[in-house]
């Protein structure tokens, strides 16, 4: 049996959000993207590297990303992903809705502690 490579400990859309945020700072290729997310989360999130790819394809299809050939940091020709204007808009919208959600959750949690 094959374990489903999905992240049950992340909420839906979280991975996409992290990809969008990371790429919006600087367009990079898949491997670099995986490394950056890992580093940034300080290994707090257990992410199987391969799982980025289905997400990347979905985002390409949704038009949030586009890809082009470029060079990696060690000068190998690689496929670079970058965020489109549509992707930017989506990111902004998602971030604000997530902030609201977290604000709501913290309030409830704070209330529960009183």
């Amino acid at each position, binding site marked *: 049996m*094959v374990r489903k490579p999905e992240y049950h400990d992340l909420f839906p859309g979280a991975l996409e959000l992290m990809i969008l945020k990371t790429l919006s700072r600087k367009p990079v290729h*898949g*491997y670099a993207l995986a490394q950056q997310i890992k580093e940034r989360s300080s290994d707090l999130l257990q992410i*199987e590297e*391969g799982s980025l*790819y289905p997400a990347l*394809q979905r985002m390409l299809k949704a038009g949030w990303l586009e*890809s082009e050939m470029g060079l990696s940091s060690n000068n190998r020709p690689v496929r670079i992903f970058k965020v489109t204007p549509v992707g930017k808009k989506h990111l902004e919208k998602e971030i604000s809705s997530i902030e609201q959600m977290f604000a709501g959750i913290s309030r409830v949690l704070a209330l529960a502690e009183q």
Partner: protein
Amino acid sequence: MNWLRNLLTRRRRYEELSQSIREHLEEKTAALMSDGMSREEAEREARCAFGNPVVIEERSREAWQWPSLESTAADLSYAFRQLRKAPGFSVVVILSLALGIGATTSMFSLIYAVLLHPVPYADWQRLTYPSYLNDDQPGSPVWWFNLNWAQYQQLLQAGSIEDVVGSTNVNSEITGRELPEDVTLTYITENVDAFLRVPAMLGRNIQRSDAESTGGQPIVLSFDFWMRHYNGDRDVLNRTLEIDHKPYTVVGVMPRDYAWERDLYVPMSLLPTRERISVLPVMKLKPGVSLATADAEVGALLHNFAKDAPQQFPTRFRMRLEHITDRIVLSIGRTLVQLVVAVLMLLVVGCANCSILLLARGMSRNSELAVRSALGASRSRIVRQLLVESLVLAVTGSLFGILLAFWMAKLIFGLFPDVFMHESVIRINLPILAFSVVLAVISGLLFGLMPSLRMSRPDIAQMMQTLGRKIAGGKGQARSLNLLIAAQIALTVVLMGAAGFAISGFMEMTHRDSGYDPAHLMSVPLPFHRHSLLTREQRAEYIETLRRKIATVQGVTQVAISADATPPDSGETRPFEILGTPFAQKQFMRAEFTDAKYFSALRIPLLEGRLWDETENTRGAAVCIINQTLAREYFPNGNAVGSQIRLPDLEIPAVNPGELVGVPDTTGWLQVIGVVADSLDNGLDKPVLPAVYVPYSRFMWEFTQFLIRTDGPPLAALHPIQLAIQSINSDQQTERNVRDLQQWIAQEPEVQQQRLFSILFGLFSSLALALALIGLYSVVSYSVAQRTNEFGIRMALGAQRTHVLWIVSRSIGVTVVSGLAAGLVVFVTLHSLLMHIAGNGGSNPFILVGVVALFIFCAVLASTIPAMRATSIDPMQALRTE
């Protein structure tokens, strides 16, 4: 058109994707190596961190696909490949299903045509016949009533009734041809078109405007008449048809399923009002009005009518309106439901067969599935794949099934036209197609699910070790196979038993001692014209003249008169009274109006007393002859001859002059002068009722009937007889339903129904038997093939062929015997019910013995052939088959 662009650029996307994944792994490996790992270690570590690249690539690709659709398409093409690889298997499975689905669909289309959509008339659920229960004759079926024109007008005003169509049938003839042709002319109220709303096939139906128009006499043809008389000529409108020497203009032809009456329709306005004295009213209830409400209102109205015209109605009656389809539902509905149970059993046997074949084949596919599973296919994926295969089989089977169903239903309809309503037509339509598609899907799931659940759980480790080697199937699979076979056998035995009983019931019915000899005998009914032969003497004289003339025709040996007294279902049920015994309410017998030659023509022997003579016949003497049953039941001391019998309700109403004529004292006492042997008078399936034979000249309708015995085939003499009749009266037609008496028996509805029943049950059970045997055969062949190796070893070690044969037959024998036993237990438990199913079927216990013997014989045959193959194995070869 985004999806189209996606579709077109998909291949490039896939390439880019695999490239990215490759780069990722390479870069990771390189990074790890630069941290000091060996290449091998680094590659392993990179893969671990990445996950299964094949699965991930597959999942990533899905972003560009319609995943469920596309993998289904892949499943489909794979399924077709699999089926092509095993053509024998596929053909057998598809055939099993086609038979099951075909039989079930044909039954459903019959049910649809007969019960769900029996008539084409608008709002047919609200149409009722004018029927009531006659309390003067308790236990008799419902009667229909006629109204006169004034009463019809009053009925129209009833609050629970939306509209009423009235009709009057008149015996008529088509004139201006060589021989007058008998037709029924139906005068029908002009609201009929709006009432039934059936579009005419050509031209139009009778319409309201026909009531006012004065020019021309419009006539509308039924489909039957159009085919019979005009040979289906579409250029028939505006032609002239001469009826009773009056010209009518054809204005329309009705479609086939419009079988209100079966000949010709003309507007009621053509019938003078004073002649509208017996109008049959068919009512359409208002929406939401229950039969009980309508019964109450119409009943009150009718009891009022009865006060003014007591001779028109029985003295005591209760309204019992019935829907126009009630009768057919009663008579054929039960039979159809029983047949549906039978076809469903057949379908289950067919499905079980498919399951058996799939399982047997699946065992040899275990290794294939194990490989797929090891390569990462999830269980649900494998189950889906296997289910798609079954559905492909089921849908293919159902396509053939639908063709088969249509053909079968048409055949049944064609073979047994009188069993169904004349309005019912078999069509392939949406509900029926939907039904068979649903049936195909259900059966696909039914037979596919169990095997796929079993097969999708392969023990990978074991399979991989024995890969490519045939191993004995798991215990679980063998158990399911045996269970399926046993269930199949049980159902088949139940079906065979029911068929046996139905067939023996049919044989009993047709081989019953009828008490008369129908060979070389035909019945020729003759209608009299309205307003003719108005006195008893005129009518009797006319009948005698015709009889004498017919007797002179070449080939005719005997001519007798029987007014509605032709067996096997003869006479009218009437109450009777015996002089000197108190009048019992529930004392009924069949009143038969005949001449004295009737008994010799039908070869019914006189047991006691004498027959009446010519002069007694001419004057309508007050004498009668009774049958043996009446003599036995009412005169146990043998003193029947000389006693007196009276028919108290044999009155001639003053309603319609000429409709009935007779002697002045039709209800007077009749002296019993003889006793004759019993002959069937209440149908082929019911006991003989008491009967009294009265000289026909005492009481005459507007028709008579000649029983004519001939040298050769009777119907061949019909034309010369018609010419002879015409030489007496050029306007005298014979009725269309001239019948050979042997043919008449075959056409009786109970015979037809029982025959239909026997044929279908016989057919279904032989199909079930064939399917069960195929299942048995394939399981034995399969298990023999599985154990080739084992048998080889046994025989190499010195086992006798008979011993090997014994091993094979022992295991299958247990299954067969337990299936048989289960079937018998079910059959015996349901015995009373099945007796019911087989109608009045036989109760012969030997039938069951015969069924079991037949089954065992077939089963032995089906399992011996493959078992023999097992014993003819050359040990060396068997060992090499590994």
